[in-house]
């Protein structure tokens, strides 16, 4: 009897309680914590975010300035698209041509170099195309294409040679655009390549490296991602160009004249910090402890001038 | 003397510790029409489910035409089960046409296509629904649905037909049709009928034997006329007069 009474009482309260709970949640969503005035939205690429650099740099910046940063990590194209719509205050990307176009169209100001890494050709240790030790990336790609088309690479040794494959980012990222430039320099057009050996993945650097590792394929990689992922990959650096093929990262503030609602002061403060001696020191040391070498490099001399 | 359609002995069934059925003995002669009356909760439906083999008794035995009904475990043997059919209180129809519903019992018995169509048509004609073969079962009224259920149960020409309050949810006209069909099934086809009902008038109209079930026990059984005109037990008398005994 008492149990039944309790049961109905619980039932009677159950629905209103759930409804109230939902209403409170909805209210919190609508009036809850919003973007503070002092917060800066940084749109950057997944390669920067995946490296873990921002987990070190941003807290240091916030501690000194009191400005919170919300990091949105997307593709370079998407980061610039956010900025073009005024949805971000500042971008940190690595696609020089797209960046210059972005600035030329009046969307960005205060473009400054922050750091760079290097593009290298990585591949299986067996190196079926025989490109190890070459000093030109374009030359290596040319030899690779020939080996893939010709089948055998002409190397000495028994057994059938493993197939030569190349994995392309295929996502119009900075790395992909650099790769296309290299094919052009080699006098080749990837559009005509056989898809059996030239795989366009349309994915991030880490996914692309994983796929190349699984398939025993070559790919063009940035050293930052490669160093961070090396322990999980059956790949090694086969061609590092002399002088290095740099992959520079620039920071750009979204133009407040074009997008009045952006947090321009916060954006400038972040740019200032990233190019300051203190910011440069953090970037220079990042990764040395964990991977034995820094993830990103800085131009020698320390002076970072305007573009 | 042929074996009775059902012979029960010491039948006990409990649910969750509550004894819902406790029958000392009962015999249902082949070809007879039995009505089991009683208030709701008396154990009428449980009795039918035991007779049909859908449930097993906790104790006691059931003989079906002289053959022990209850198997060691699970359902009674298929050949035995196929000699009887059952009509439930709420007509449950398959989501299919009327013809497919009526044909079900024939199909599971592997009857050939030609005879199926012929027998379905005849059964539908019997229940006054000739020509409705292609209608969807969902489009039927409650009365039509119950008549289809009856056609579906009779089409396999069972020796025993069990009915659980078949007219409880029906209007008087449809109830009358069902009742006359039961009399015809008994008279023309020789089907043994066990009808569970709380409707005393129905028992009086249809059955030749009536039993009164109260709190899981058979209080009194007898030929229907005697049962109603000279009940021996005071509780039966009270129930027949419509006095509350439960």
């Amino acid at each position, binding site marked *: 009897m008492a149990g039944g009474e309790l049961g109905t009482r619980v039932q009677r309260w159950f629905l209103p309680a759930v409804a109230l709970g939902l209403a409170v949640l909805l209210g919190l969503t609508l009036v809850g914590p919003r973007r503070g005035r002092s917060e800066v939205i940084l749109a950057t690429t997944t390669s920067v975010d995946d490296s873990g650099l921002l987990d070190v740099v941003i807290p240091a910046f916030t501690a000194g300035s009191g400005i919170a940063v919300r990091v949105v990590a*997307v*593709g*370079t*194209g*998407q*980061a*610039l*698209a*956010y900025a*073009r719509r005024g949805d971000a205050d500042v971008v940190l990307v690595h696609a020089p041509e797209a960046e210059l176009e972005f600035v030329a169209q009046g969307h960005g100001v205060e473009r400054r170099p922050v750091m760079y890494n290097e593009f290298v050709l990585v591949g299986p240790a067996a190196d079926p195309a025989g490109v190890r030790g070459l000093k030109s990336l374009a030359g290596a790609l040319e030899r690779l294409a020939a080996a893939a088309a010709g089948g055998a690479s002409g190397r000495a040794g028994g057994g059938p040679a493993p197939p030569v494959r190349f994995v392309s980012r*295929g*996502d*119009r*990222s900075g790395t992909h655009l650099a790769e296309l430039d290299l094919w052009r320099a080699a006098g080749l057009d990837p559009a005509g390549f056989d*898809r059996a050996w030239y*795989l*366009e*993945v*349309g*994915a991030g650097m880490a*996914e692309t490296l*994983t*796929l190349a*590792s*699984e*398939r025993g394929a070559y790919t063009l990689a940035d050293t930052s991602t490669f160093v961070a992922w090396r322990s999980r990959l*059956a790949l090694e650096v086969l061609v590092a160009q002399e002088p290095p093929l740099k992959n520079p990262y620039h920071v750009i503030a979204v133009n407040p004249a074009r997008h009045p609602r952006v947090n321009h002061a916060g954006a400038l403060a972040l740019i200032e910090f990233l190019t300051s001696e203190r910011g440069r020191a953090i970037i220079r040391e990042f990764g040395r402890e964990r991977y034995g070498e820094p993830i990103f490099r800085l131009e020698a001399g320390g002076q970072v001038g305007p573009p | 003397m042929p074996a009775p359609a059902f012979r029960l002995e010491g039948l006990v069934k409990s649910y969750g510790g509550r004894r819902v059925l406790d029958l000392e003995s009962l015999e249902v002669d082949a070809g007879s029409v039995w009505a089991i009356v009683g208030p709701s909760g008396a154990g009428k439906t449980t009795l039918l489910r035991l007779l*049909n083999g*859908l449930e097993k008794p906790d104790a006691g035995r059931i003989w079906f035409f002289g053959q022990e009904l209850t198997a060691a475990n*699970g*359902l009674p043997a*298929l050949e035995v*089960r*196929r000699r009887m*059919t*059952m009509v*439930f209180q709420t007509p*449950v129809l*398959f*989501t299919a046409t009327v013809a497919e519903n009526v044909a*079900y*019992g024939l199909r*599971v*018995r592997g009857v050939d296509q030609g005879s199926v169509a012929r027998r379905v048509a005849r059964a539908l004609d019997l229940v006054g629904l000739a020509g409705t073969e292609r209608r969807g079962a969902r489009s039927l009224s409650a009365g039509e649905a119950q008549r289809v259920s009856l056609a*579906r*149960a009779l089409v*396999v020409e069972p020796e025993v037909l*069990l009915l659980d309050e078949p007219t409880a949810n029906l209007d008087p006209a449809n109830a009358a049709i069902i009742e006359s069909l039961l009399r015809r099934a008994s008279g023309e086809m020789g089907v043994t009928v066990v009808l569970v009902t709380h409707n005393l008038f129905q028992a009086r109209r249809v059955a030749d034997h009536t039993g009164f079930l109260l709190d899981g026990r058979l209080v009194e059984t007898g030929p229907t006329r005697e049962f109603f005109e000279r009940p021996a037990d005071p509780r039966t008398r009270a129930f027949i007069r419509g006095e509350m005994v439960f």
Partner: protein
Amino acid sequence: MTEALRLLVSLDPELWGIVLLSLGVSGTAVLLSALLGVPAGAALALWEVPGAAWVARFTYTLMGLPPILAGLVVFLVLSARGPLGHLQLLFTPTAMVLAQTLLVLPIVTGLTLAGVRSKDRAIRELALSLGATQWQAAWRVVLEARRAIGAALMAGFGRAIAEVGAVMLVGGNVRGHTRVMTTAILLETRQGNFEVAIGLGLVLLAVAFAVNAAFYRWQEGA
């Protein structure tokens, strides 16, 4: 948006390849799930197996499995260092089918279970009382639950065709090999080509609608 629609009507072979691969991968995943999940769900609903309640609870929980997690499991199993690495299935449509099957199977099993259970007792007893064998009665219950099972298959198809995390991880979004509609949309979005992404999204919805319409037409007829 106009770009994607233009490509579609102009029968652009690459776009059509992507659409067909999406349908092929998700359709195969649903087919596999139907072959395994419908009998499994029906069995769980119809037979009192010890532990069936726990299996059912586990199945319902897996209905909320995050696609990326399903992808990760398949990835680890199929990767070169995984137990099935020698099969070299990673970054193939087969791997995508496996990952999506992992997502769809619990849905088909769980919804079949619920659908059959709602029909179970009354239909089964009716069939038995009309002389059906246990198997015939069970089959009748499944037949009666066919609409629920159809809805389960469509829900599974919807989840498969719309998910991106698992196919991205185990398929790799390789152009001409493992690129499907969702990964193509993701790729365009990451490049900032929002219009093309939306256009592809509309194509995806149109394809899903066409599949649903065809399925329900078939089910009504059956």
